[in-house]
């Protein structure tokens, strides 16, 4: 008999922790709550199937070569958890640390990459600037000529960066949670949250009401809609982010290539398909329909880097909804307005790569009430205090 990854269960009337959103952040939080803090009664609620949100829509790129002293150690811790994950979960997540190149085509982006390289090295992250000859040795297919509209000037080379099987991460965590009797409830949409005297008492769902000791909002693009139910305002706007995948080619590209100037990132999967990502669409939206102008933009900019790919056909195009914050950094913490309402939101275009460490920190916060040092800079109160993070090395946003 085949082993089930996780079992369907009936919804109970009360839980210690109710997690709204069963993507990678919610699953990782549940996993660490059970594993490290011994919390028993946890329910993960999701309006769709497991991995139907951004956990299954991202381009599966992992890296830690960020820019700020807040961001770098945080993402570094996340990459290290990903390196251990197959061992930790007893489940192969197919992490390939093939190396990651961020291209500079202008003086200003070169300066930005130089700052990142220096900051990364000081904080112990393997990351350095390389120049066109070396880029060409690593990626023979790339066009480093001066004929290009935006000739390549340099790249930030980040050897530990790479790609992972994002579905495997979701399934691996779900399986590990299920083994600890943490309940996973797909197709269970939250319709309301009852708040009395500054406490969230009860979560209403399409399958009935559940009482909650603590409620965690980890709903990415829909974070504002859930937060509104608890009366907690957020500085978030939702934008869609699109990506596509082409028909397979012989292996020719074994690095992840990112260009902020061209708003495109490219990697070749083990099957040979090219996964191409865009920057966020320029208007706020909850729609998950892909659009032709964005496909044209992705295709044009990919051809700027790899002109020989003209005529290559696109198999699929899709979109996810990203919760963008004003400073390109997440919001993790307890709501000021509701004492047992927690959030791990504002993950914008960089949530997948942060999942394990965000889950570990959020679990510690919920279980102990203490904010771990790694996430202190990401508190919900930072906007009122005027202490923005300013993570300009975030993915898929113009620098």
């Amino acid at each position: 008999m085949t082993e089930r990854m996780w079992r369907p269960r009936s919804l109970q009337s009360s839980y210690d922790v109710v997690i709204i959103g069963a993507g990678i952040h919610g699953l990782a939080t549940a996993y660490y709550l059970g594993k490290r803090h011994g919390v028993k009664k946890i329910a993960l609620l999701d309006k769709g199937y497991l991995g139907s949100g951004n956990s299954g829509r991202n381009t599966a790129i992992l890296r830690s070569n960020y820019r700020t002293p807040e961001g770098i150690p945080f993402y570094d811790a996340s990459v290290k958890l990903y390196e251990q994950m197959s061992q930790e979960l007893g489940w192969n997540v197919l992490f390939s640390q093939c190396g990651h190149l961020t291209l500079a085509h202008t003086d200003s982006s070169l300066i930005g990459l130089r700052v990142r390289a220096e900051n990364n090295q000081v904080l112990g992250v393997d990351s350095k600037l390389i120049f066109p000859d070396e880029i060409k040795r690593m990626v023979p297919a790339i066009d480093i000529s001066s004929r290009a509209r935006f000739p390549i000037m340099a790249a930030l080379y980040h050897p530990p960066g790479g790609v992972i099987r994002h579905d495997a991460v979701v399934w691996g965590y779900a399986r590990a949670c299920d083994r600890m009797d943490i309940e996973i409830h797909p197709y269970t949409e939250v319709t309301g949250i009852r708040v009395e005297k500054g406490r969230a008492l009860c979560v209403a769902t399409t399958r009935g009401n559940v009482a909650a000791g603590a409620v965690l909002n980890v709903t990415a693009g829909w974070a504002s809609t859930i937060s509104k139910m608890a009366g907690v305002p957020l500085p978030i706007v939702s934008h869609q982010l699109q990506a596509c995948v082409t028909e397979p080619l012989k292996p020719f590209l074994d690095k992840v290539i990112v260009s902020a100037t061209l708003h495109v990132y490219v990697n070749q999967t083990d099957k040979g398909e090219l996964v191409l990502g865009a920057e966020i669409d320029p208007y706020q939206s909850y729609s998950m329909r892909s659009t032709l102008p964005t496909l044209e933009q992705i295709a044009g900019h990919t051809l700027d880097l790899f002109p020989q790919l003209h005529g290559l056909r696109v198999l699929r195009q899709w979109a996810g909804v990203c919760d963008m914050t004003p400073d390109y950094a997440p919001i993790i913490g307890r709501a000021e307005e509701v004492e047992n309402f927690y959030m791990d939101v504002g993950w914008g275009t960089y949530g997948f790569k942060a999942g394990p460490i965000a889950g570990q920190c959020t679990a510690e916060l919920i279980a102990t009430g203490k904010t771990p040092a790694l996430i202190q800079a990401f508190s919900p109160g930072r906007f009122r205090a005027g202490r923005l993070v300013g993570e300009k090395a975030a993915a898929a946003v113009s620098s």
Partner: protein
Amino acid sequence: MSFLLACPECGERSAYEFRFGGEVKSRPQQGDSEEAWFQYIYTKTNEAGEQEEWWFHRNGCRKWFQALRDTRTNTVIATWYPE
């Protein structure tokens, strides 16, 4: 499919001709409380549904106008110049 926006001046054009200007909010007056300014700058309704918002016809008449749009489907219900 992308979507079309009816510019009050130029008529229906692709959304990519425009610059999105965010949800419509009322701007506090000089001398209003710090709280009012905080709410204005940082708090977003981020409506999943019909929302009044600003648009600028960047590649056309270069005028700002307002629109009522359903953010779930990108259906534009109305566009107008604000008073």
